[in-house]
């Protein structure tokens, strides 16, 4: 009786408002279609499975940047560091765990790769709590360079610039062996991507996810309303690192190789570009971006590599100057405009 809130029944307006809020996390037709098509690729493009696995992995890496940059607003040029850490950790687990049953299992390898990356992410997250975008850019870049140096210099462990050879993961969960056609690799990568996507989707639609967007929008106010801003940033940076680490682990397992190329600057930059192509802050931006990026690379790169690089650069310049928010930003802008026209009519 003392607590009014307990006996209080929400007004109809409040119930309607709640339905609006909850409606934001409902699955749309386009979303379902996206995943159905992605799964159907197994049958539609049987000769391109290894390329598709690669796209799924790059998409996961871009998704990890989306969590950190698109939602929490932490500008990063060093996500490749976590990709590389994940790749080497999983690769080493597969190499030295070969034979001793659980350690060479790819699924365990994912957790080892993701876990190591998350650990490094957690430690370095304290470096990106403060500072301007510019400082964050340089710090994340610096961390990636340091990881790159470590990989190159610890030849006895990582194989240095020759790459890590002899990564032979056993069958997934002891049942599905990796095959020459990349069938297992594709299904495995897609399942991992989908599961982590579901998790990311839950996170960004939750109060925690909303608080990240608020921090991105206005850190001063989030502190004033009593939000533990630093804790939230550490959490999402660590989660993002885990995602990137899992992506790296997938890459090492499906290609049975890890090289310093995984931690190089262009890895971080490419993944960032994919996200920006697709549109940051929509979850799907990185996935769309990786599809377009990798396809363009395949088509243009086959003509001449310089051609691809030139048009990549030109697209970026045009994107920044004319198309804010990437493809999804463009689409949602169009949708809003049409809706407003509909409302006005």
């Amino acid at each position, binding site marked *: 009786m003392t607590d009014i809130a307990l006996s209080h029944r929400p007004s109809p307006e409040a119930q309607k*408002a*709640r339905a609006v809020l909850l409606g934001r996390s409902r699955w749309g037709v386009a979303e379902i279609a996206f995943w159905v098509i992605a799964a159907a690729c197994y049958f539609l493009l049987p000769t391109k499975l290894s390329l598709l696995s690669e796209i799924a992995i790059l998409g996961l890496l871009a998704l990890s940047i989306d969590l950190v940059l698109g939602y929490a607003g932490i500008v990063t040029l060093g996500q490749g560091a976590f990709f590389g850490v994940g790749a080497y950790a999983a690769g080493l687990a597969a190499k030295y765990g070969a034979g001793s049953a659980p350690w060479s299992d790819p699924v365990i390898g994912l957790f080892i790769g993701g876990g190591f990356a998350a650990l490094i992410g957690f430690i370095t997250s304290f470096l990106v709590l403060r500072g301007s975008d510019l400082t964050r850019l340089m710090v994340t870049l610096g961390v990636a360079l340091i990881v790159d140096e470590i990989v190159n210099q610890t030849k006895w462990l990582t194989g240095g610039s020759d790459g890590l050879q002899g990564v032979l993961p056993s069958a997934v969960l002891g049942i599905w062996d990796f095959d020459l056609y990349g069938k297992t690799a594709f299904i495995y990568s897609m399942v991992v991507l989908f599961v982590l996507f579901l998790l990311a989707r839950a996170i960004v639609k939750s*109060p925690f996810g909303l608080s990240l967007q608020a921090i991105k929008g206005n850190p001063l106010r989030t502190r004033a309303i009593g939000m533990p801003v630093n804790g939230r940033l550490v959490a999402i940076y660590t989660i993002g690192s885990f995602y990137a680490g899992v992506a790296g682990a997938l890459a090492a397992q499906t290609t049975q190789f890890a090289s310093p190329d995984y931690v190089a600057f262009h890895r971080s930059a490419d993944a960032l570009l994919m996200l920006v192509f697709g549109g940051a802050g929509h979850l799907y931006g990185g996935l769309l971006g990786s599809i377009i990026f990798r396809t363009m690379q395949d088509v243009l790169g086959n003509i001449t590599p310089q051609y691809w690089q030139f048009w990549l650069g030109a697209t970026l310049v045009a994107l920044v100057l004319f198309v804010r928010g990437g493809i999804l930003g463009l689409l949602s802008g169009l949708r809003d405009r049409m809706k407003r026209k509909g409302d006005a009519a």
Partner: protein
Amino acid sequence: MSAKILLESRQLVKRFGGILATDHVDFTLPEGARHALIGPNGAGKTTFVNLLSGVLTPTSGEIFLDGVNVTGWSARRRAHAGMARTFQINQLFADLTPLETLVLTISERENAGWSWFRPVGSRADFVDEGMALLRQLGIEDIAHGRVGVLAYGKQRLLEIAVALAQKPKVLLLDEPAAGVPEHEREQILDVVAALPDNVALILIEHDMHLVFRFAKSISVLVNGGLFMEGTPEEVASDPRVRKVYLGEEEVNV
């Protein structure tokens, strides 16, 4: 019998380099207060509020909130202890909706901000409270629009709504009507006048009309120091205060 003191500053000092922005301010705010903080431009009003709310750390002196020394506390901890504020320049989340902003604030107040699996809106009580606040401020019709594109006056109201959603003991309103066009001004004044009695209020304001309509006591800050304190009548009739304000106008003209 005097009311319980909710907020107090003792010998509060803030220096920026060689400038004394807050000069040994002793200040008390009792329960249920309607207190205005006035003073000419550059008197250090906003600095003082930033010290109280924890945005700035004082050079020396102490701050007590409901009897607890909070001098070394972060803004976040003070917010949880019952201190809320609005900002002179809107500090809102442009990409969220007003309802999302309030539900978020309520989640943080109830320590549910870490919840990461259930979607926003799954707590019916939070949504209900948020809608009730929007209704109280007369802006429930814009509950689902993007904050960034709202009219300026509506944003000012949302500023206050966010602070109220914190269920504060002490509320600092930093020029709530600043920059609001005349026709929307009345709505904000009504909201300020109708704020719940159990909240101790500090109003920082330039607009004397608003100050005298609303305040029961007034402090005048000049050059970072407390110049005088009293009832609105005392302050209004004080020749020294007139001189400070007239002097300022002369400079401005």
